[in-house]
């Protein structure tokens, strides 16, 4: 299928998310749409998929103009989409999910046999094994993604859009996915790959279109260097590698012993974990999302009771303390979900900068709150951390993701810390801000602080960590020095493979 977008414009109020975007995808082509978070890639694809209506511009399929009022229209025109957050009903079986919206019935009764047969046929044709009877919520993320692809293929699409498909995959799963995409291309399908990961783009794309702030800023060949692509994407030269000297570890700051934690449903999420973070080093905890990292950090922070074990900060027990006591003991915390756990979106930037300090001097006492001290503090922090905001009194929710994250980092790093816990500090943050945040983390280390970094992005772990602990199913299955670690080796560990 040949797809052409001409002058697509989409506005949300004053914000122009897509500004006269032109794009041509040739039949049998893998076309990468490269851009930072918030550049407008997903908006463009939602327009193409009929989820949003464009304000201007037209969509042409095989040179025929089309109007998509709903995803149903896009599907019948031969366009399928695998969303970043999977569009699968967790309590349904694979077959139910795939047949939904295109159900075969026999005398009004759902024909599950026919659906299963069709699924098996498609999955054999393209080499995508799925079990039609499995319940989706019991499947690993990689398999769920496969279900999404099969779902699109059973609808006989000719063009498949994949929105950040590798965000939740291990390096090996990513390789498998790229292999599947090559197979689809060989079968004559066109593919649009939305991503901000340069390596994948170089590995698989035939053509690259770069989007920045809602505009197409250029096209490139996969032959271009990563540095050049990054510069196009961000609009200036960026340093992809963090400069850092060798760590000089001192005395242990955080010692976790035999810690076990259960998740919200009462299942064991963390089992007998031991770990140690020394002064002046960054310990990176790598792992695929959902292997107990969240529960581990929440237990250390006093946000979730531990079942057993101990958490020592410089020899003092933290387990059983309240979160405020943990913070007061000298722990800084950048939570993984900044919008629900890190910020009060309706509060101003200035207020968010003192969320943990508002009742201690100079910002106030038990009875009073001193706005002028808060404002002064905000002015300094905004300058020091390069927070781009209209004013200190703007609601923090109006800032971009990267700047929101900088507000959290500024708050957590502006008091003396023994330990900094940073969970997914680069998630949903633009490259420029990532660069800045990473530098601050290394500076914290160089000043003698201990840093516990949790990330599902291997690049981030490899860039920052001095030692790496890999979490798999609630256990730390290996700890290794960053010096000898490669993404292949870590990828295997993240998938639970420990054999030497």
């Amino acid at each position: 299928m040949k797809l052409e977008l001409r002058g697509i414009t989409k506005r949300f109020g004053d914000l122009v998310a897509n500004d006269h975007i032109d794009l041509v995808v040739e039949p049998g082509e893998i076309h990468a749409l490269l851009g930072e978070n918030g550049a407008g890639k997903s908006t463009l694809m939602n327009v193409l998929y009929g989820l949003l209506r464009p304000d201007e511009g037209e969509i042409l399929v095989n040179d025929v103009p089309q109007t998509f009022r709903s995803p149903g229209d896009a599907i019948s025109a031969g366009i399928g989409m695998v969303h970043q957050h999977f569009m699968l009903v967790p309590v349904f079986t694979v077959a139910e999910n795939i047949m939904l919206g295109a159900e075969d019935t026999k005398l009004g009764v759902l024909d599950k046999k026919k659906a299963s047969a069709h699924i098996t046929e498609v999955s054999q044709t393209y080499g995508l094994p799925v079990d039609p009877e499995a319940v989706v919520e019991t499947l690993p993320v990689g398999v769920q993604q496969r279900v999404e692809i099969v779902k699109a293929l059973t609808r006989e699409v000719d063009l498949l859009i994949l929105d950040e498909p590798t965000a939740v995959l291990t390096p090996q799963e990513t390789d498998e996915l790229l292999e599947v995409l090559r197979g689809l291309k060989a079968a004559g399908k066109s593919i649009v790959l939305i991503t901000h990961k340069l390596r994948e783009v170089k590995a698989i794309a035939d053509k690259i279109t770069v989007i920045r702030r809602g505009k197409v800023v250029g096209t490139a060949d996969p032959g271009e260097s990563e540095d050049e692509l990054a510069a196009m994407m961000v609009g200036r030269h960026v340093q992809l590698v963090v400069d850092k000297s060798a760590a000089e570890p001192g005395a242990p700051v955080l010692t976790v012993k035999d810690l076990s934690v259960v998740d919200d449903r009462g299942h064991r999420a963390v089992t007998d974990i031991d770990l140690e973070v020394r002064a002046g080093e960054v310990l990176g905890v790598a792992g695929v999302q959902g292997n107990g990292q969240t529960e581990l950090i929440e237990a250390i922070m006093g946000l979730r009771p531990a079942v057993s074990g101990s958490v020592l900060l410089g020899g003092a027990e933290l387990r059983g303390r309240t979160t405020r006591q943990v913070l007061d003991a000298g722990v800084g915390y950048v939570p993984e979900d900044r919008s629900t756990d890190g910020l009060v979106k309706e509060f101003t930037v200035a207020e968010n900068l003192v969320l943990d300090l508002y009742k201690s001097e100079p910002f106030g006492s038990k009875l009073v709150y001193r706005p002028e001290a808060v404002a002064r503090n905000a002015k300094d922090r905004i300058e020091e951390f390069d927070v781009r905001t209209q004013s200190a009194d703007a609601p923090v929710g109006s800032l971009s993701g990267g700047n929101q994250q900088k507000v959290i980092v500024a708050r957590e790093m502006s008091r003396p810390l023994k330990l900094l816990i940073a969970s997914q500090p680069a998630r949903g943050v633009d490259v420029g801000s990532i660069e800045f945040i990473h530098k601050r983390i290394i500076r914290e280390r160089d000043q003698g602080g201990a840093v516990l970094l949790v990330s599902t992005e291997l690049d981030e772990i490899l860039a920052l960590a001095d030692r790496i602990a890999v979490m798999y199913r609630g256990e730390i299955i290996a700890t290794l020095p960053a010096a000898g670690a490669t993404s292949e080796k870590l990828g295997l560990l993240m998938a639970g493979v420990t054999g030497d």
Partner: protein
Amino acid sequence: MTTVAQFWNRNRIAGAVYVLLGLLAVLYFGVSNPAKNDVTLRLTADTSLTFGARPVIIVLGLVTVAVGVALLAVLTARSHFAWTAGVALGALVLAFLFWGTSLAKTLHTIPVEALLYGTLIAATPLIFGALAGVLCERSGVVNINIEGQLLVGAFAGALVGTMTKSVWAGLIAAGVCGALMAALLAVFAIKYLVDQVVLGVVLNVLAFGITGVIYERLMQPNAAEYNNAGQFKPWEVPGLSDIPLLGPVLFRHNLFVYLALALVAAITFALFYTRWGLRTRAVGEHPTAADTLGIKVRLVRYRNTIMGGFVAGLGGAMLTIGAGVTFNKEMTAGKGFIALAALIFGRWSPVGAMLAALLFGFADAMQQFLSSVISPVPSQFLQMAPYLATLFAVAGLVGKVRAPAADGKPYVKG
């Protein structure tokens, strides 16, 4: 700390409560205020069983104690919770029934047939209401408005049934009025994104108000012209109604009871085996996913909510033209909320909701029976029984249930 919390899990807490309640039953019903007269269980017109009430009560109390001990000692798995609750609480209720009957002023006979017949009658409006909830909530719209929908159904059934002199017209009008009320709920919930719990309560007040005014101004002063509908006559199913015990209990009802049971079967089938059901459940669980497959989420929700209102309206008519009773102000008396509880207790499944409704219906029938034989239990306490049963069922026995994931969450694109 932790060890204590782990020891007192849900099963053990329930076990301790059963031991306590069982002992109380033995001591109070069996010893300190003992049952005196023998109790006769009349199963059919010519089969009766007579028991010494006291030994039966003591045995039932001890059964409860035994279940409690078993829960404390050995039955620690989660799966044991539900059936043990059924046995223990069932034994307690039976003990109470025997005791109440034994000390009654008039008769010492429990008419099993009539009691179960009454259970079904009392459960029928609850089944309709809970099915209305299933239809709405499976598609993701919370329906706190069941009470109001039942009430307008009862009202319209009586009013239109009288004016047209046709109970059938009354029945249709009841469904339509319930659907209209639900349409209001749907518009505000789906289009204007109003909080669905608050909205449901407000619409209930609206239903009280409208029916109350018309009742006082029109139906009460001119009862003969406006509040004097006929009644759906019972229809004995040929053959089946002659089965001993089962026949009289199940097959000598009027349209409403049969319709309720048929709807349970029909909705179960539709929900799990048809395209409509698959789409309904998808929209209630993950509306965005449904939308990306071209399913019109809001349309599904409108349709289901209005269908739910129609069903609840029919259920309301059971209270007037189904029972041969005139309409009365706020005559639903919380039945809509008990239906809501049945929906939750039944875990959003039509069959589960029906079973829960039957349980609450039994509490109601028992209450009516014990009042009629003038048992020593104060009547105010007896009237609390269905509500108490609801409270215990929902608070204590349900535990963590999983509602449809998008229940009550409006769907906004983008």
